[in-house]
């Protein structure tokens, strides 16, 4: 039994922490978010150089061959910096789908470019009506002589505006809500018929809606098994959830630390407000909430790790429960951070609100707490 990060993992974690501490302060982040691209190409190239973009990929494609624990260690620190560069969208989603497919040619063509930082990617799964059900897909792919023709609309695609290439879900058979009949397609973001309408989320993430009108995709760029694209998606989602929850954990730790420090320095009635028992007890509650979230992230990592000998139901119970606990803890910690910072917590000038907004958008990613609690219930009762 062991719940410490290994020496190598700690080194990786420390290197991300050092980057955040030394190069990614709040003003730097603000400037990046306000820029046209909404991300820093310079930092992205640096991430590539440091090997961060290679972490989850297999060695045969030039990757580091890392595990979800390695990624989690990094994500916690990226969370503490509220880093907006599209690591999850490019490396874990777009790259993760490719990496788990059996399209050898596509993999050898694209993965090295993800790793060297020259290919940004995005995964379009959401449609206006689909909310958290990944299998609700109206976008269609119709077979033509040498490939497929796609028609439909994808919504709130993270990093789509900067992406060189996209993977989207489209229906190749079955009805709108069928799991079977969904396939994945890789396309260039500047392909004919692809229209990208960018906008920004409240957490600073650059996202876009994508309209696909008679977009031709060669047969060779259909990713994974035809009609069984969801099998591939289901392999990637747990890894992404572990990463997102680790990021949320980093933010929670950061917020708790900031709030504690603020209450120690802020004086009212002639004393630091940290001397008030009511605030002390609430900070104990937020401390406990972060620890419980950490325990669930570790539980998830163990469940989906190499040593995981438990059955699929238990694995997924842990995964859904992790998202539930992280959602609850995030909400408590975010709201308490603003409240205990008082008026200052309301200002755009302070980083607190920006962390909270990131927690809120993270909460929604791939299902909010209630959605996962329902899934948990279905597996449990």
């Amino acid at each position, binding site marked *: *039994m062991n719940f410490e*990060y290994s020496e190598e993992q700690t080194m990786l974690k420390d290197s991300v922490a050092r980057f955040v501490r030394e190069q990614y302060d709040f003003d730097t982040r603000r400037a990046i978010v306000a820029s046209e691209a909404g991300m820093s190409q310079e930092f992205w190239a640096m991430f590539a150089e440091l090997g961060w973009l290679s972490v989850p990929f297999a060695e045969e494609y030039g990757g580091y061959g890392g595990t979800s624990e390695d990624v989690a260690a990094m994500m916690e620190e990226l969370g503490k910096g509220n880093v907006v560069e599209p690591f999850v969208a490019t490396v874990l989603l777009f790259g993760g789908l490719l990496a788990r497919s059996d399209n050898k040619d596509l993999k050898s063509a694209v993965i090295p470019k993800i790793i060297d930082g020259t290919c940004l990617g995005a995964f379009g799964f959401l449609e206006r009506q689909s909310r958290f059900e990944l299998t609700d897909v109206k976008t269609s792919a119709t077979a033509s002589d040498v490939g497929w023709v796609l028609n439909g609309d994808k919504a709130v695609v993270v990093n789509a505006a900067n992406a060189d290439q996209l993977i989207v879900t489209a229906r190749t058979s079955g009805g709108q809500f069928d799991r079977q009949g969904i396939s994945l397609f890789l396309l260039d973001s500047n392909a004919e018929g692809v229209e990208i309408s960018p906008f920004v989320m409240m957490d600073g993430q650059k996202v876009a809606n994508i309209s696909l009108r008679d977009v031709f995709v060669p047969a060779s760029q259909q990713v994974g098994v035809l009609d069984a694209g969801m099998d591939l998606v289901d392999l990637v989602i747990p890894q992404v959830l572990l990463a997102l929850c680790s990021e949320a954990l980093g933010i929670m730790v950061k917020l708790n630390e900031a709030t504690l420090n603020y209450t120690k320095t802020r004086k009212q009635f002639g004393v630091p407000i940290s001397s008030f028992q009511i605030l002390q007890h609430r900070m104990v*509650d937020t401390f406990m909430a972060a620890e*419980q979230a950490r325990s669930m992230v570790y539980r998830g990592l*163990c469940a989906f790790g190499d040593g995981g000998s438990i059955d699929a139901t238990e694995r997924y119970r842990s995964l859904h429960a992790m998202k539930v606990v992280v959602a609850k803890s995030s909400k408590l910690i975010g709201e308490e951070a603003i409240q205990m910072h008082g008026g200052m917590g309301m200002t755009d000038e302070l980083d607190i609100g920006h962390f909270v907004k990131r927690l809120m958008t993270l909460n929604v990613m791939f299902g909010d707490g209630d959605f996962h609690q329902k899934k948990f*219930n279905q597996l449990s*009762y």
Partner: protein
Amino acid sequence: MDVTFTKEDLAFRSEVREFFVTEYDASVAERSKHGKNAELKEGIITWQKKLYAKGWVAPSWPVEYGGTGWTPTQKFIFETERGIAGAPAVMPFGISMVAPVIYTFGNAEQKAKFLPRILSSDDWWCQGYSEPGAGSDLAALSTTAEHAGDHYVVNGRKIWTTYAQYADWIFCLVRTSKEVRKQQGISFLLIDMKTPGVSVKPIVTIDGKHSLNEVIFDDVAVPVENLIGEQDKGWTYAKALLAHERTGMADVADSKRALAALKDRASVEVNGGTAMIDDPVFQMRLSDIEVELMALEYTELRVIAAMAAGGMPGPESSLLKIKGTETTQAIQELQLQLAAYYGGALPGNLEPEAFGHAFAEEARHGYMYGRAATIYGGSNEVQRNVIAKMVLGV
């Protein structure tokens, strides 16, 4: 990271599991949990003597006094298996509360006199800390012990004393000096319950049962050889004891068992023909608790793993009591909710089984007496004060 046990630990777990299967039988279970008066005492002692015979009654004691020499992981495994089996925890007052004070601060005669009889459950101990005017502010206690030659004369009253009606001995914090800071004038005294002047007054609790008492001392003569350590140093000893209290106080295994029982019951109880376990709202209430318990389980494992690696547990260990008791209470609340009308019924002379709702009686009792969990052992408010000071540094 990994959550697997070593081969040795797994072998140990089989041994412990086997022991509970063969030794913890239903009749002991019934008496030790639901027996009335003498029957309850006899049930508990019978069970503890089985543990004693096996050499497993005091895992946390040093080996020289009868401890097991188990690793932190083995202690954890034992507690977990105990919870799975549904066996009661050993009465803490002798084994985990007074004994560590005796073997740490007592003299050779005291160790020889008291420890063997604590280990064998031949002496039943109770705890004399709280007083009517000293609860969370324990150091405000006012029971006095006046030094008079070869004995102390004790006067005052102790309250909330669990099972004092069965006890042979009571360990007390008493005031031996009023001249100094309130913590400094306190001494640690062992008192024979049969001494003239000691009387026990029952306190019936809101679950309708009698486990708590007031213990009154009226000119009670206590031999000076029953003083632990030095006079006026009792507060230090008691504090050291608090730090000694079990780390596995999250009661995860017990809560898992209670939750499983709750789920079973929820598939029997129906509303409009639908089992409560299939009711979406009830499911949300259940999983609110279950996910929190799953997190708590890993928080406890993190503490155990750190200790097993030879380190000190991190700050997360401080939340075990608060979260453990809150989770226990949440389960009890839902049990009572599930019992609906029957949760309020006092079956009187009706056999609970004839009444059809034995579980409802347990639900009511569990909920009512369970309110105490966030009050005793340092109320959860005091626990939060401690974390604020020790962990947050405010």
